[in-house]
């Protein structure tokens, strides 16, 4: 990953110096040419193409923005609900996670906090279980499935 990116940057600088101008547009063109060159080199490097990870990151950010907007819609509905006492049933649930690295779990807990109806409260000692305060726990399994199916998968794609 790091090596591919380094080659890409070197090709970009080479392109800019051949053009004898270092404007941002020249650097951008150089970067695109570098990315294409690395794409054809990927067989020799024994790694998967690194733009795949960048694309996974873009997808993760897109998912996150969508969830943030939904979270706010959800929050508006809860706050302006006149029958707050009857409709809202919060609860604290333990959500197991299969993510391996610490940074992945940090990102997961941040995303959980900023998404509909959930707030990370604590983690277990081995950091493999997150304790999440949720505003809708009618169906406990559904909350867990939502987190595992959307965020965990998106983060794992970036991490691999």
């Amino acid at each position, binding site marked *: 990953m790091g090596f591919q990116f380094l080659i890409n940057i070197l090709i970009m600088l080479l392109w800019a110096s051949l053009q004898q101008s270092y404007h941002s547009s020249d650097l951008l063109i150089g970067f695109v040419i570098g990315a294409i060159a690395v794409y054809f080199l990927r067989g020799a490097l024994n790694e998967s193409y690194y733009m795949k990870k960048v694309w996974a990151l873009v997808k993760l950010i897109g998912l996150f923005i969508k969830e943030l907007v939904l979270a706010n819609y959800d929050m508006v509905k809860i706050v302006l609900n006149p029958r707050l006492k009857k409709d809202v049933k919060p609860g604290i649930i333990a959500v197991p996670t299969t993510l391996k690295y610490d940074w992945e779990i940090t990102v997961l807990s941040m995303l959980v906090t900023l998404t509909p109806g959930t707030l990370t409260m604590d983690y277990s000692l081995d950091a493999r279980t997150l304790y999440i305060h949720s505003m809708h726990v009618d169906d*406990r399994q559904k909350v867990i499935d939502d987190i595992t199916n959307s965020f965990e998968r998106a983060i794992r794609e970036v991490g691999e």
Partner: protein
Amino acid sequence: MIEILISIFIIGGCLLSLIGSLGIIRLKDIYGRMHAATKSATLGVILIIIGTFITFMGRGTLLFSLFFTILFVFLTAPVAAMIISRSAHRIGVELWENTQFDELHDSYPEELKPERDNSKAEEISTR
């Protein structure tokens, strides 16, 4: 034309901040209030920053440093919410009586379990 766009973003951001504040008053326990404070405030700040960015873009300056504000809010708001609600839970702040499960309480070791009387939460929060 650009004024309308700016107004939509800034008024939207202000409304979200207002709703976040209303949520802090209306929800009954500290955990629900952290929900209102983090989510609405984050998107509210983002919308206001985008509005500001468009304003300056209309005048011909691109202030990309404004987006660092968004980055820092993203980094700090969830952490603050987590630490505040965790500390509150550990010292035994009451949960709202509608709360269904409390699996975090079960996970504490026996000698560290705080005392908690959830039926009092509403009375305490409106005092």
